[in-house]
């Protein structure tokens, strides 16, 4: 009965949805109605701005931005502004750098790849909203000099000097198709359809791939080469020879460059759009249609399969550009729901927003904006650039930033594997650092720190308290909070210590470590 109603509802398309053109709204209006969810809370303007800022530009909104926005809360305009901003491209570059390098920064990587060129290319791709199909094609098939063809750095990073190029196969199937094939490296996959020959058939496309270091007119360079290209290879520890072949058993056209053929196969695979739509959805909604985001299997049952397909179709109609997809999600009522759980609503119903723990990039950014960390880091950065112990290829802001992200991911998880890959379980190390580190406490107290700025601007405890709240929690204090903290300030006779204590409390608060 319910299902028939749902079908009728979807067919009729006459829902009282606020935006008939938003397929997410159209879909969930029906889901909510069907589940008998009549009351949902929308995120207020403060919540919305904090959420969208963290998700799109990777940082907390600044107090001035918050005040301007709540005066004139045009959400659609804000979304467009954020999506088109330079900071959004920066955040995309940071996020994808970590994803494409398998979330880890090996200390020898700056010797293997050209970080500045690679990051600049990622940023540029985001800034001009390069069609994702083109983006992936370049990552999969660009070879040559790592500065002139910066996308080649992706393959360069995954090459091992001794091992056959199977790590490339692991990464490209996981990242671009959402498939996990690594088990098939050693044996036919027990749960999935992949055989060992499937795995090595893909790997054979990269047979002969190697980096070639050389002198260039401006010093030193690396070239990604194929020597000899795409020949047959033997599966290690076996006698089986495999030739380059696609997962469906077809072989590439021998008259074409093998990597171009492979890229064309990947970017037209039925998983191609699903994998990226699922990843983008999970980024914004805190939970993918399929979880974990890069583990589609034969048996996986996506939540809301119809919506996933609708978004994929729309994505392809938009020439596989990411920005319209993000816009659709960001402007939807599901995205703009309050985080407060709706009673009796199923987890998957998106009737309320999921809590998302901050990732390492966001943690570094929050420390920067709330503690003026940049000023503190300037000195380190200068030393880093001038260090004679480091080879030339390390001394650039991109590598420095990767070190910082490495540091924050270590704070978030004991093994340095950060929450985007695994569930967030709280971190004692982060807690101890935020509570007791003399460096961070020094930043709270510093003359040039954010708190000192706030205290200089206005003597009134109320104004100061509001500014501290806007800086750290992106909202003004609630009545009870105001009462509690004003009483505290009074008890401490309005001294600087009292404000430092409040700053400390909010930096360590649960509310800060989540995007809600």
């Amino acid at each position, binding site marked *: 009965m319910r299902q028939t109603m749902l079908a009728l509802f979807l067919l009729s398309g006459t829902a009282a949805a606020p935006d008939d053109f938003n397929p997410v709204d159209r879909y969930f209006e029906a889901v909510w109605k069907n589940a008998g969810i009549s009351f949902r809370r929308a995120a207020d303007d403060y919540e919305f701005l904090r959420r969208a800022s963290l998700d799109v530009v990777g940082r907390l909104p600044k107090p001035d931005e918050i005040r301007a926005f709540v005066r004139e809360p045009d959400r659609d305009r804000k979304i467009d502004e954020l999506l088109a901003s330079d900071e959004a491209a920066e955040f995309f570059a940071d996020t994808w750098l970590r994803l494409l390098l398998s979330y880890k920064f090996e200390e020898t990587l700056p010797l293997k790849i050209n970080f500045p060129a690679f990051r600049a290319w990622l940023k540029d791709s985001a800034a001009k909203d390069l069609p994702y199909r083109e983006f992936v094609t370049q990552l999969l098939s660009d070879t040559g000099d790592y500065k002139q063809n910066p996308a080649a750095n992706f393959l360069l990073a995954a090459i091992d000097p001794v091992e056959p190029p199977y790590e490339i196969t692991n990464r490209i199937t996981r990242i671009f198709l959402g498939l996990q094939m690594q088990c098939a490296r*050693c044996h036919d996959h027990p*749960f999935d359809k992949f055989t060992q020959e499937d795995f090595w058939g893909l790997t054979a496309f990269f047979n002969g791939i190697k980096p070639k270091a050389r002198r260039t007119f401006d010093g030193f360079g690396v070239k990604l080469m194929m020597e000899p290209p795409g020949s047959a290879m033997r599966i290690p520890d076996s006698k089986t020879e495999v030739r380059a072949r696609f997962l469906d058993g077809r072989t590439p056209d021998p008259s074409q460059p093998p990597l171009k053929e492979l890229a064309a196969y990947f970017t037209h695979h039925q998983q191609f759009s699903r994998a990226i739509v699922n990843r983008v959805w999970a980024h914004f909604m805190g939970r993918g249609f399929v979880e974990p985001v890069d583990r589609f299997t034969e048996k996986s049952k996506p939540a809301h399969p119809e919506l996933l397909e609708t978004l994929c179709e729309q994505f392809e109609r938009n020439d596989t550009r990411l920005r319209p997809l993000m816009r659709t999600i960001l402007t939807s009522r599901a995205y703009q729901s309050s*985080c407060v759980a709706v009673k009796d609503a199923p987890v998957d119903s998106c009737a309320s927003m999921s*809590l998302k723990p901050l990732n390492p990039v966001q943690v570094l950014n929050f420390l920067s904006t709330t503690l003026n960390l940049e000023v503190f880091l300037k000195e380190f950065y200068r030393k880093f650039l001038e260090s004679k112990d480091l080879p030339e290829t390390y001394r650039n802001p991109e590598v420095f930033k990767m070190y910082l992200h490495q540091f924050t991911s270590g704070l978030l998880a004991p093994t340095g594997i950060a929450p985007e890959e695994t*569930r967030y379980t*709280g971190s004692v190390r982060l807690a101890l650092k935020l509570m007791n580190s*003399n460096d961070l406490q020094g930043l709270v107290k510093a003359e040039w720190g954010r708190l000192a700025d706030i205290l200089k601007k206005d003597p009134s405890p109320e104004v100061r308290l509001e500014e501290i709240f806007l800086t750290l929690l992106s909202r003004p204090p609630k009545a009870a909070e105001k009462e509690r903290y004003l009483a505290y300030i009074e008890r401490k006779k309005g001294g600087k210590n009292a404000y430092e204590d409040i700053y400390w409390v909010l930096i360590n608060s649960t509310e800060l470590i989540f995007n809600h």
Partner: protein
Amino acid sequence: MTTTCGHCASGRRDFIKIAFGAGAAAALSGRFQLPSFAASKPAKAKAVILLWMQGGPSQLDTFDPKPGAETGGPHKAIETKTKGLLVSEHLPRIAQTSDSFSVIRTLFSKDPNHDTARYLLHTGYRTDPTVDHPHLGSLLAAELGTRAEGLPGCITLGKEPGAGSGYLPPELSPLLIEKIENPLEDLKLANGVTSFRLADREKLLWSQNEGFAAEHAETSVDSQRKAYERAFSLMRSPHLKAFDISSEKDETKKLYGNSPFGRACLMARRLVEVGVRFVEVTLADWDTHADNFNRTKGLMEQLDPGMSGLLQDLAQRGLLDETLVVWMGEFGRTPRINGGNGRDHWTRSFCAALAGGGVAGGRLLGRTNPLGTEAQDRPVSVQDLFATIYGQLGVDPAKKYMTPSGRPIKILEGGDPLKELLS
């Protein structure tokens, strides 16, 4: 020899269990221990100290030298107290204490990559996209509990641990002490903060969090609260002085040598003394693709006093019988010396050493050929090594845990204890 592929070890067989037991498993929804019917044996050891040689230590330049062979390199070999065991000339004190430990020379794996091999040698499993396995120390802490109030059961000194708490609860995660020279860096109150002021702050913090938790009843919020509770109890632990090696007598400090590794070994002894189950001490930089011989010499100058000092000190205090000391790295290094006077990754036969905790001293297991290129007898798998460790601590490796996704998984898949080394 078994031929299980570690990362899918519980593949087809467990598929059946999942198919038939899934309903029940899902209903339990937590991480539940399944009953085990194998009787566990009484424990010999109560704690483990892992001396982790990060980067892959060269077996030919430490515990399996090949003097005179073309693969041997310039280090000389010296006799030890153990019949048939030669070690590098740069391990003179270790040679003198060889009656307290046994050496395995034919350990093998199939994993030549640092990250995944490190995971394998810390969990007994290969990396698996469908499940996170716990650190050996987290598992021991889960099985045996902790005896030191406020301190976690598993502590790693110096380097990020090779695995996390995996499918076990986060409170069993290894605690990383980053700086050996300043171990309490983030455990002590920041400058200018008194314990009274901390009490004020803490009170305000719990009130602040209460409001958020009331509206967001998700497990991750609860995890965050628990992480702070653990951080506070750690800061207030009566055992923090175990991290302070300055109170040790000079002669004891001298025993361990003047190096960060030596000091970390001494700290490990103090931690085990107050009841920590598992301490990992890292000596890094064994990845000697270039300049192998100068670098291994430098590393052995730290290793020799650190390890021998630890074994002597534990023995003098009567702690060696109940403390299992394990020396290992993620793999060994090629017998072939490369163009840069270095050695590359080698997984076919490499060394590990075990001492104390009921393991006999002065024994040798496995032998490699004169060039060090082949194991001649008794290949030992990583699972065999882990089965030995679990066995000595009275942990039944066949016991199953339930992963968060409702899949039963054994503490260890395969592997037989190395009976030849047990006293």
